[in-house]
Structures are given as structure tokens and as C-alpha cells.
């Protein structure tokens, strides 16, 4: 079960949920209602399933998520946060350390310049700091990397990504997210201009060669 939280401080050029960027949008949901919903789905989760909170950027609502995840853990439901890793304050560390079974951490770009270009913000280091924090707690995480031809796909960038994380023991897998244009209509619906108009989707060969490079560094690489 995936819960999308509203609001994000980044505005990534390829965002496929741009409707969740605005921190004032969305619909208020009662925590217990969501918990009950999750319980109705519990027997479908199998060994690997559970509740995933995505967004937007979920950590903007860390305090509420603590209450939500606390309840889910009481019900023995697996919890996952899909995050860009921008925030690492006290409620966030409590949420991650005590109540979050898995984080899926988005690595946008390996260079400051590239990070700025994609997100419109400075400081690529925040996601690395979160990864280090997670590593120190010994709890599992997955990395996610959006592969955009010409923008993030350069072999040198992939080698940098691999080299940086290769010794992390808590990273179970790296997921390559092939860039796609499915979100374009949402940008149009919001009346925004889509910034990546000229970008193209990856060929199968490009995806496979990126996978081959990253497989040198990570125990499991998956193409989503």
C-alpha cells in the first residue's frame, strides 16, 4: 500500500507527481483511517510488502508519520519511506531509527551542478548524510537513481555513484529508475511548462549498460 504525502521543497525537472509538490494541496487523512486500510490489506502484503509512504517528500510531516508508523508497527506491518533525504532533524531520526523498516533514498546526481539543474536547489550532500546516518544505525535501505540519457547516464557519474556507496553494508539494492514521460500531462494540467521537453527515454541497451556498470559496486541492481 502506497500513501502519497503532499508537499516537497524540491522541484525536480522530471517529477512524475508534480501535483504533490505544493505544500498546501492534498486531502487531510485521519491516521487511524489509514491504519485500518492497511490492516484490510495486510494479508496481501506477503513477505516483502507493507506500507510505503511516498510523495511529495514525506519527511516534511515526520511528526505525523511517527504516530502513523508507531501504529503500523503495533500491527506488525512493514514500513517504508521513499525520500529525497533533505531533512535529518530530530523527529526525522526518531522516525527512521525507531519506526521505519526500510528507506528508499533518491540519489539525484553526483555533482553539485547536476543536482542544482535537476532539483532547482543547492547542496547535494544532504542525501549522502542521510545514507551515512542510516548506515550507522545498521538498518536497511535501497538507493534509487533516475537514469536520464545525457543528464545522469554518463558512465563516469555511474562509477562515481558506485564508488561512493560500495562499502555501505546496509544498502540491499540499487534501483535504476528509467526516465519516462508519464508525468508530462500532469505538468500541463497544472499549467506549468515541462522543463525536460527535449529529453528522451532510455533504450534497452542503455539501461543494460548502466546496470552492468553499477553491478560492479552493488550486490543487487534492479531496473524498475
Amino acid at each position, binding site marked *: 500500500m502506497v500513501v502519497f504525502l503532499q508537499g516537497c521543497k524540491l522541484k525536480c525537472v522530471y517529477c512524475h507527481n508534480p501535483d504533490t509538490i505544493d505544500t498546501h494541496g492534498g486531502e487531510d487523512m485521519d491516521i487511524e483511517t489509514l491504519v485500518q486500510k492497511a490492516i484490510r*490489506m*495486510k*494479508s*496481501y*502484503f506477503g513477505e516483502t510488502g507493507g506500507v510505503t509512504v511516498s510523495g511529495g517528500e514525506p519527511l516534511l510531516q515526520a511528526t505525523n508519520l511517527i504516530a502513523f508508523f508507531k501504529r503500523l508497527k503495533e500491527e506488525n506491518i512493514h514500513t517504508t519511506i521513499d525520500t529525497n533525504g533533505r531533512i535529518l532533524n530530530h523527529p526525522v531520526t526518531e522516525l527512521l531509527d525507531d519506526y521505519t523498516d526500510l528507506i528508499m533514498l533518491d540519489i539525484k546526481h553526483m555533482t553539485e551542478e547536476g543536482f542544482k539543474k535537476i532539483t532547482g536547489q543547492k547542496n547535494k550532500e544532504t542525501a549522502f548524510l542521510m545514507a551515512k546516518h542510516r548506515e550507522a544505525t545498521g538498518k536497511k535501505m535501497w538507493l534509487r537513481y533516475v537514469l536520464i540519457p545525457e543528464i545522469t547516464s554518463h558512465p563516469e557519474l555511474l562509477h562515481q555513484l558506485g564508488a561512493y556507496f560500495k562499502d555501505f553494508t546496509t544498502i540491499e539494492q540499487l534501483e535504476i529508475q528509467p526516465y519516462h514521460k508519464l508525468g508530462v500531462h500532469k505538468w500541463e494540467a497544472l499549467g506549468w511548462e515541462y522543463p525536460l521537453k527535449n529529453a528522451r527515454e532510455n533504450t534497452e541497451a542503455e539501461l543494460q549498460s548502466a546496470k552492468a556498470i553499477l553491478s560492479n559496486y552493488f550486490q543487487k541492481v*534492479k531496473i524498475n
Partner: protein
Amino acid sequence: MILEEMVSVATNNNDFKKGVWNTSINVRDFILQNILPYHGNDHFLVGPSPKTVALWNVCKKFTQEERERNGVHSVDTETISGIANFKAGYIDRENEVIVGLQTDALLKRAMKPFGGYKVVQKALEEHGFQPSDEINTLFSKYVKTHNDGVFDVYNSEIKKLRNLGFLTGLPDNYARGRIIGDYRRVALYGIDRLIEAKKQDLASIKGPMTDAVIRLREEVAEQIKALKDMIVMGNHYNLELNRPAENAQEAVQWTYMAYLAAVKEQDGAAMSLGNVASFLDIYIERDLQNGFISEEEAQEFIDQFVMKLRMVRHLRMAAYDEIFAGDPTWVTEAIGGMLHDGRTKVTKTAFRFLHTLYNLGPSPEPNITVLWSPYLPTNFKKYCSKVAIETSSIQFENDALMRTTRGSDDYGIACCVSYQELGKQIQFFGARTNLAKTLLLAINGGRCEITGTKIVDGIEPIQGVLDYEKVMANFAIAMKKVAQVYNDAMNIIHYMHDKYYYEKAQMALIDTNPDINIAYGIAGLSIVADSLSAIKYAKVTPIFNEEGLTVDFKIEGNFPTYGNDDDRVDLIAKDAVKAFNDELKKLAVYKNATPTMSVLTITSNVVYGKKTGATPDGRAYGVPFAPGANPMHGRDTNGAIASLNSVSKIDYRDSLDGISNTFSIVPKSLGATKEEQIDNLVGTLTGYFDHGAQHLNVNVFDKETLLDAMEHPENHPQLTIRVSGYAVNFIRLTKEQQMEVISRSFHESL
């Protein structure tokens, strides 16, 4: 080679572990004593043998010709079908390791006129054939059929409900089917021993000679004749069916011959096979361990057995296709499940059966049904999930639920969804009633909404905005009446079927005094639930024509719809099932059968829709219903799991004949990789059945595939889809049925 054959033939059955099966007819005990459950993976499986490939090529050629000839390859118009009435027929004798055809040639259909001669005439005529003069004279002048008997006795009330579409698909002009012979008995015991047992039974049925006693004595006498005929049928193929099978090949062959006897004699809508895989595995495993056969040969037996089952045909008229589309035969084989003692019934042969969908390609028949339990071996669950994703040819039923609710761990699935204990229980099939149309009686003063014909007394017409309580009160009166007429029809039908078209071959392979379920059914559940929800939660005003009959409904406001895991409406559906079932349970039944009910439509959801006016949920006149217990197309908008959860709320105890749900999901939404898809489908099945649901048809494909198959059928000769409790070859559906399938909900998220 010759030496080996001699060794294998010389094997007797003394090495099987003994038990009560040695002293009484008890196949279950034989399985219990000798089964070897398998927990491994699918890596042992092998491809088709050269013989199988050659044979299957002939079958493919014939089925292609059959399509070109408008659905019928050929018909024998001289012979009345029966157990031993045709001489031997072969596909390609050199390559056949399992022999036997219904007639003397592949895909040649046979006349079985005892259910009703008119439908045979009609079917022949529609395909440009004529019965021989002799047969025509016999059945026009001298022989009385089941159909003749039923219509002698039907009253005007029954005819009215039948003609107006309140009752549809009743087996009153064709064979009722659904009875599953325990075909394994022929292999395990040989026919001589079975005759001996039946003779003992006959001798023990003593007077006073009441109707029931006389009838039973006559039935058992018929069964003994059928068994003798089976020996003759075997002789045509040089098979000694009088003695037990002594090796794997014979066990498969004997079991098939027993089934063949049934489909030579009867053409019931559904002629299930039962649950033979774990039984056959015992023989196969023994021959493998003794080195008599290889895995290639083991798979060859199963491939060729399954090929034969795929070639079963009955002679049908075009009108039949409206309710049972795609020329189905429901050779339903249940696979997997658990024994009461905690062991699984999954064997290597369960895998071999599923593997035929690769060796021979996807196919609707046999209707492979996986009996699901959380305790099934993980490897098997994953393999079933993979097969479902890759072929859309199998269905799943909740073994844990049925075994604990119904009591036996040795059962088959009759037709689509119905539990039937093997060799100990039968059922009387009774199609279904149109519950949505019954609801309209409640709003139309007890009159048919299309013709105005009075059906039920004591219902006042309703004016203005519909009041929920008032409609419910009227609905209860309407259900009571329809249930009573339905029950009358069923009693007549089964009385006459026993009298004029008794299933002597199948009944010969069942205990002499079996339990009987009478299997009623309903259609239009989601329409009823959504209509009542609209009346309860929105403001619904009927629009009447000059005759005071509803032609449309004005709906103001929103209302919850069935299929979104919302108790406000889901419990209305649950209660409607219970209410109608409770009415049926009050009525006396022929042969003291136990009333059961299904929520199942086959493909009749289309024809039911045609016969039903506009409904208060906003559905227009003529629009097809959702199949079975499915939510209405496009109204289950909260994802697949919410939709499944809604259906799982229908209580199996109120619908013991089965609750059919057909589920279509696009591959991507199950996961990015095949591995994820397999795991997620396992998770979905586990969750759904954990919620107490009974049945799930699984389709995994994109709508585009179906659209392409409509445009280019030649590229999709074996494209198989699950419809409602069975599967069909998509390109054999009519355009209208194809469009209806395409309009169904394809879940794009879990």
C-alpha cells in the same frame, strides 16, 4: 526395449501400501497411503516428446479446420452416442500413447438426443446436417426425452418466468452435467471389481418397494450395464479395463477411458474430470523409481491425456453459445490443495499438468483449477503464479475454506466453482435466476418491467422517490415468489433427467447412495447491491412509461458502489445473497437434496443484461451485467485489493455452490520484473483467500492484446482468457462477447 515392456507389464500392485482401500472402494485411502508430496521446484520438467509434437500438430490442423467450418468439424448423423456405440478412433495411431476418442474420428461430434431431440435437430440444421431417417423416426415418434418430460409437467408460471428471463439456462432441454464420476476407480480397481461391488449394493437394497427403493434398484441396475459397456468400449481399443491398471501408462489410460465413457454418454454443460493428478502421480512415481519410465515418458502420458481432454466436443446449437460462449466443455481438473492430516496433495504430476500449458500452449480446457492453501509448498505457489501470469489459463479456489466448510479433502470442482466430494456426492445443476430483474419487480408492483406481465401478487406500485425500507420489503416478497417457482422448475427438471437421461456411466463410479446438492444460482448481484445503495444513500426517482413501468431512474447525489471495500454497500450485497439463499432453503427438494447456491454467470451476464430494463444504479436497459460476483465494470475504482476485499465479504456459507470472481490486471501493475509479478500474485491470492473468498479467475494482460486479437485473430490462435469460472479461446467468442470482456475493469494498480 521388449524386455523392459515385459517387466513393466508384469508389475502387479502388491507393492502399494495397503489400507482400507483394499477391502472397500475407497480411492481417497489409496492416495492417503501412497502419495508422495513434492516440495521442490519446476526444474525437473521436460518439453514435449516428438510423438506429442506430431500428435498436437494434427490436433492444431483439425481445430483450425473446425474454425473454418464455422465451429463444427464433422458430425456422425447415423449413430446415437453411447458408451460402446462407436468403434475405436485415433488421431495418429503410431504416436498415441494414450488412446480413445468420443467417436471414431477426431473432432467428429456425436448426437446425444436423450436430453432433448429438438436441440440436436437444431444444432445439426444450423451446421448443414440432417439426422438419418431412422433416428429421426425414432425420436420424433417413439422415444421420449428429458426435454419432453419436463415440458409435459411445467406449469404456466414456470414457463412465464423462463420466457421473460427471470430464469435462464435451466438444463431442461440439454443434459444437466456437473456430476463427476470418480474416474480413478476404474484404474485402481478394474471394472470387474466395481461390478461386483454394485451387485452387492443392489442385493442389499431391499423392500418394502417404495418409489424411492424401486428407483434406486433401477438406477444401480443401469449402472451395472454401464460398467459392462465400458469393458466393451475398452475392448474396441484392446484395453483390458476389467482388471486394475498395472503401470503408469495404464493408470492414465484407464482413468481417461472412464472419463471417455461419461462424455460419450452425456453432453452436460460441465463434465468435470475431478482430481486425478495426485492419484496418477502414485503410479508414475512408482514406475519412475523402478526405472520403467523416464521423465520424458511421464510427461508424455500427461501431455497426451490433456491433449485428449482438449479435443472433447459436444454438439451444440447456436442459442447455447449465448449463455456458454466459446464451446466450453468444463473438463475441470482440480490440482493441489491439502490433506486433512497436514500433508499437501501437490505432487510432481501437479506440475506436469500445469506444464502442459507450455508443452501444448495455453488452452481453456481442461479447466485447470488450483486449490489454494497458505500451506501449499512455496515452490508450487510460485509456479502456479507464473503459469497464471504467462497463460491466463488457470483459476484458483480456496482449499482451506472449502475443506473445512464442506468436510472432505478428496474433492473435485464441478463446472466452474462448485465443491463436490469425489465418489460420494453429486449435484443437480440449476443454472440461475436474475436477481436484478427480481429487484425491478419490487419497484414495478410485481410486474415484469419490460412486458408488464404480472409475476408477483401483493406488491403495491411505488410512487415518487424510492424509499429503501419499502423497496426492501417488496424485494423480499418478490424473492420469495421467484425462489418458489425456481424450486418447482428444478424439482421437475431433475426428476425427468433421472428418468430419461440418467448418468449411468458416471453414477456407476460413485457410491450407490451419494449426498446430493441441488445447485441454484443468481446473476446480477452487483447491480442489486449498487441499486439498493443508490436508493439508500442517494435520491432515486423512477421514471415510468404510460403503462406504469420503469424505463429509467433519476439519481440525485452520490452513493457508494460495490467493489471499493466499503461496508455500506458491500454488506448490502452480502445480505442479498443470504436473503435469497434463505428463501431457497425453505423449499422441499426432489430426492431430499441439500440446497446450495452460486453467484456465477458463466457468460450469461451478457444475455441477462439484454433481458433486464434500466436499473436504479444508473445502468441502462440492455447493458450487460458484471460476471459472477464481480463488481460492475469501471465502478471498482479503488484498486485491485479493494475490489477483491469487497467480493470476499460474500459469505461462502450462504453460497456453498461457489462465488465466482474474475480478475484482470495489467502485467506492469503486478511488478516491474517477472519475479516481482510472481511474488505479488502469490501475495494477492494469499490475501484474498485469507479474507475468506472462494474463487478467483486470474487474467494478466493488457487490453491492447485483446484488441489486437480482435483485429488479427490469426496471430492469436491459442489466446486464452478466463471469463466466469472457465476459460475460453478468445477468438472463438462473438464480437459482442469480446467487447464485453474488453469493457471489464483492468486493474492498473493493486
